[in-house]
């Protein structure tokens, strides 16, 4: 599979063209204009520009890296600058075309506003073209120089930039938080300008990110390793203190952050619960379930129907009575779905579960079942849960419900993972036939996985219904299943902390960036493909899976005997 290493002038052209095409794609799909108002740094750099220049930077970086292996450093830098220049030329070409022809009838986003952005603040056309070329070259050059920085330092720099980007994006949200209490108002005023970070804030987070990354990558200072070296008693104390601190912070979060961030956190939390459930089905047992949203819907609808005081009122139970019923029904649905698909594997299973999910969606929307579950109008007036006189009314209160759910479900998933059934799931994931031969009862093991996953989703659905107070069928479409699947893949299939990380990135970020909502699924799709191509084990990989996917050849002397695979 090894390609012959070479890098010629033609490759520069190729990289430049790819960079240019990706930049054009980002423009045409509407990101540059949509993100134009989201400033990262002090009203000078906005997210639109970042999305426009990142593809050029990445391609120029690759070009420089490849060129450096073959030829001189000087050549590498020239190559990267040229790649940037060519990419810039593509953008300039779009500017010219867009000004002279009406591209808008086909490409919706080539609007006067966009063309103004592409002018980069220059008045005349010539100056604007020149500005595009120069900026392209500068970005390319920067990428070339970046490629020369030693790995550890470039990593640190990237972490710093990521910090700046993240904090810049969160400006609006954090400003509200900082503005809410007197005693941390000055901090907010120091960090943030009117739009985006202030220069001081930028420097602060850049340095913070760099230091953090260096600290973690340094062999002697890495926190985990340091703790591991301590004597046992001390280690346990440190860990206990860390856990207690974490719990206290989690409990205090809604009070520190206020209402809107808590709302985001509860949404993230509901996805974490679902993620933990799907992680059991997909991650542990290796059964790709694309109809997972059905169990979420069953949980939500059960609570809705049993507790609503609106038009469809039936029993008028309270939340706590309906909750176990919701979980139980979801679990039963999991078993019922599990039975017919017992004999299926891999992709057929995925399609069948997808089919089930769609059937349920069509049925819920139909007039046929409308008298029972409300059709497209959904179920309204679901009362909030309460304990005694404490009502979980707003996001700041529901947060605790979600947190309790996550802790319980997380504990169950963690204990199951290494229990007998957890090991059976993993064995089944690796090879069903071998697992069966080792005495694992496939039917009950599979059904157990479906049931547990479905029960978690049922819990998530119940909390979801209580949180919103009304449920509609369109909250339960295929997109939810895909979201949950994406977040466990991004976090790392089979990894429990990965679910949390994945949910924070994939569910939390879009809530923060409202302009982003339009591109959410685009991003998820691209992320699924990219993760599978580049990092199939996810960002927080499960240990065994990482070993599996990045296997070091154990006995290299065997390799020459098995060349058949390499041919195709």
């Amino acid at each position, binding site marked *: 599979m090894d390609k012959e290493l070479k890098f010629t002038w033609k490759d520069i052209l190729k990289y430049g063209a790819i960079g240019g095409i990706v930049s054009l794609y980002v423009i045409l799909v509407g990101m540059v204009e949509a993100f134009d108002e989201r400033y990262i740094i002090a009203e000078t750099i906005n997210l639109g520009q970042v999305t426009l220049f990142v593809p050029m930077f990445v391609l120029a970086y690759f070009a420089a890296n490849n060129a450096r292996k073959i030829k001189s450093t000087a050549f590498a830098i020239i190559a990267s600058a040229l790649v940037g220049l060519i990419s810039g030329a593509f953008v300039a070409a779009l500017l010219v075309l867009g000004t002279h022809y009406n591209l808008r009838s086909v490409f919706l986003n080539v609007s006067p506003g966009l063309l103004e952005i592409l002018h980069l603040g220059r008045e005349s056309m010539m100056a604007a073209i020149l500005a595009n070329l120069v900026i392209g070259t500068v970005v390319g050059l920067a990428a070339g120089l970046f490629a020369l920085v030693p790995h550890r330092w470039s990593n640190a720099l990237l972490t710093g930039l990521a910090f700046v980007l993240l904090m810049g994006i969160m400006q609006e949200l954090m400003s509200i938080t900082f503005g809410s209490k007197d005693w941390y108002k000055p901090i907010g005023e120091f960090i943030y300008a009117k739009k985006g970070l202030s220069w001081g804030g930028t420097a602060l987070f850049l340095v913070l990110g760099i230091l953090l990354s260096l600290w973690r990558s340094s062999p002697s200072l890495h926190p985990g390793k340091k703790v591991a070296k301590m004597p046992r008693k001390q280690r346990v104390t440190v860990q206990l203190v860390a856990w207690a601190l974490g719990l206290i912070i989690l409990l205090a979060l809604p009070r520190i952050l206020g209402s809107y961030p808590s709302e985001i956190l509860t949404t993230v939390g509901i996805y974490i619960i679902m993620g933990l459930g799907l992680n059991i089905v997909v991650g542990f047992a290796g059964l790709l379930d694309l109809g997972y949203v059905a169990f979420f819907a069953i949980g939500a609808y059960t609570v809705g129907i049993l507790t609503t005081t609106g038009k469809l009122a039936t029993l008028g139970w309270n939340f706590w009575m309906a909750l176990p019923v919701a979980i139980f029904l979801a679990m039963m649905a999991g078993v019922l779905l599990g039975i017919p698909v017992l004999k299926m594997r*891999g992709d057929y299973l995925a399609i069948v579960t997808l089919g089930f999910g769609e059937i349920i969606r069509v049925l819920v929307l139909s007039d046929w079942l409308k008298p029972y579950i409300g059709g497209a109008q959904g179920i309204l007036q679901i009362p909030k849960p309460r304990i005694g006189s404490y009502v979980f009314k707003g996001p700041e209160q529901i947060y605790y419900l979600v947190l309790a759910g996550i802790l319980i479900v997380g504990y169950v998933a963690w204990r199951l993972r290494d229990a007998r059934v957890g090991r059976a799931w993993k064995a089944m994931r690796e090879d069903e036939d071998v697992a069966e031969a080792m005495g694992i009862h496939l039917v009950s093991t599979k059904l157990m996985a479906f049931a547990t996953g479905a029960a978690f989703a049922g819990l998530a659905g119940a909390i979801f219904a209580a949180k919103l107070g009304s449920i509609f069928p369109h909250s339960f479409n295929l997109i939810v299943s895909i979201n949950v699947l994406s977040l466990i893949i991004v976090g790392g299939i089979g990894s429990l902390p990965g679910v949390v990380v994945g949910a924070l990135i994939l569910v939390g970020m879009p809530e923060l960036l409202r302009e982003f909502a339009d591109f959410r699924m*685009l991003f998820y799709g691209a992320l699924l493909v990219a993760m599978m191509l580049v990092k199939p084990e996810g960002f927080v990989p499960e240990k065994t899976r990482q070993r599996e996917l990045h296997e070091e050849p154990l006995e290299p002397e065997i390799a020459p005997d098995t060349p058949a695979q390499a041919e195709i």
Partner: protein
Amino acid sequence: MLRKFMRNHDTTDIVMWLIGFGLLAAVVYGSYVTLSSGKYAPSVWLDFFIFGLAQGSVYALIALGYTLVYGILFMINFAHGEVFTGGVFTAYFVAIALEKAGFIEKNWVLSLLILMAVAMTVSVIVAVLLERIAYRPLRGAPRLVPLITAIGASFFLQYTYRGIYGSGVKTYPDFPALDGKLHAFGREWPILTTQALVIVVAAIMMVFLYWYVQKTKAGKAMRAVAEDKEAAALMGIDVDRVIVNTFALGGAMAGVAGILYALLFKQVNAFMGFIPGIKAFTAAVLGGIGNVPGAMLGGLFLGIFESLGPSLFLDGLGIPSPYQLKDAIAFTMLVLVLIFRPTGILGERLSEKKA
């Protein structure tokens, strides 16, 4: 005898068969009630049937793309529905331009050919890029990996179309020459002209594809690769190129299917390919996935079943507004086929293990 039967089939099998028989009984009973009530005139049934045939031929063309790719790579190209969308959605802009120029009225045959050419080109490009960027690097990876990639690609493409072309539903221009019932050989036939055209074009494409796969050298190479990649490579066949060919061929069929779909339903949007994609996949499985004539038959069967079903048996069962459940029929069929006969009606091409 019962004991022997019980020994050969476990409980889950029996439960499944009971569910299957239950559904079958419901279908038979519903059809009986509807037919004996005489609610629909025979000519209405004929209309349903012909409409089913027309939409079925669109499904069949899309299904060919699934079957060809599955036959060779054993992967479900989940994003094939979006390959279909890409062609017809891009051709929409050409169609609008042609209409503005008055060309559709002047020469509708040429206009249609131009639209098909555009749709085929774009679909082929999307399919080939998909293979090159998303699938090729993953050849030989565990089977779930390319499937997840394909799902990701599917959503990526849907939202790309939405981002670039806009999210609204767009109405295809009308072909005045195709309005009304078909007049040919001096009399009027009980079939709309568009439907007749769709059926004829689809039939031509299917015959072409069959000829291509069975008779040409490229088709022979394709079949050889489907049989055994290693052996084919040893015989001097460029496997990568055959795979690209296969994707391109599937894409071309999807492009034509797109234009036919636009003729039938008149509307396009960024997400239009998803449901027909899944239905076409159902058709491919129905006919035995990997089996070219099977996909054609499966598509026609599914189209007709879906068109007749709501009024035939759902109505008879007393379900209100049965047409809302049209998609549920196709999906139920998908689930049932995959459960009871994953090799399809025609196919014993591949066993579960080989697949």
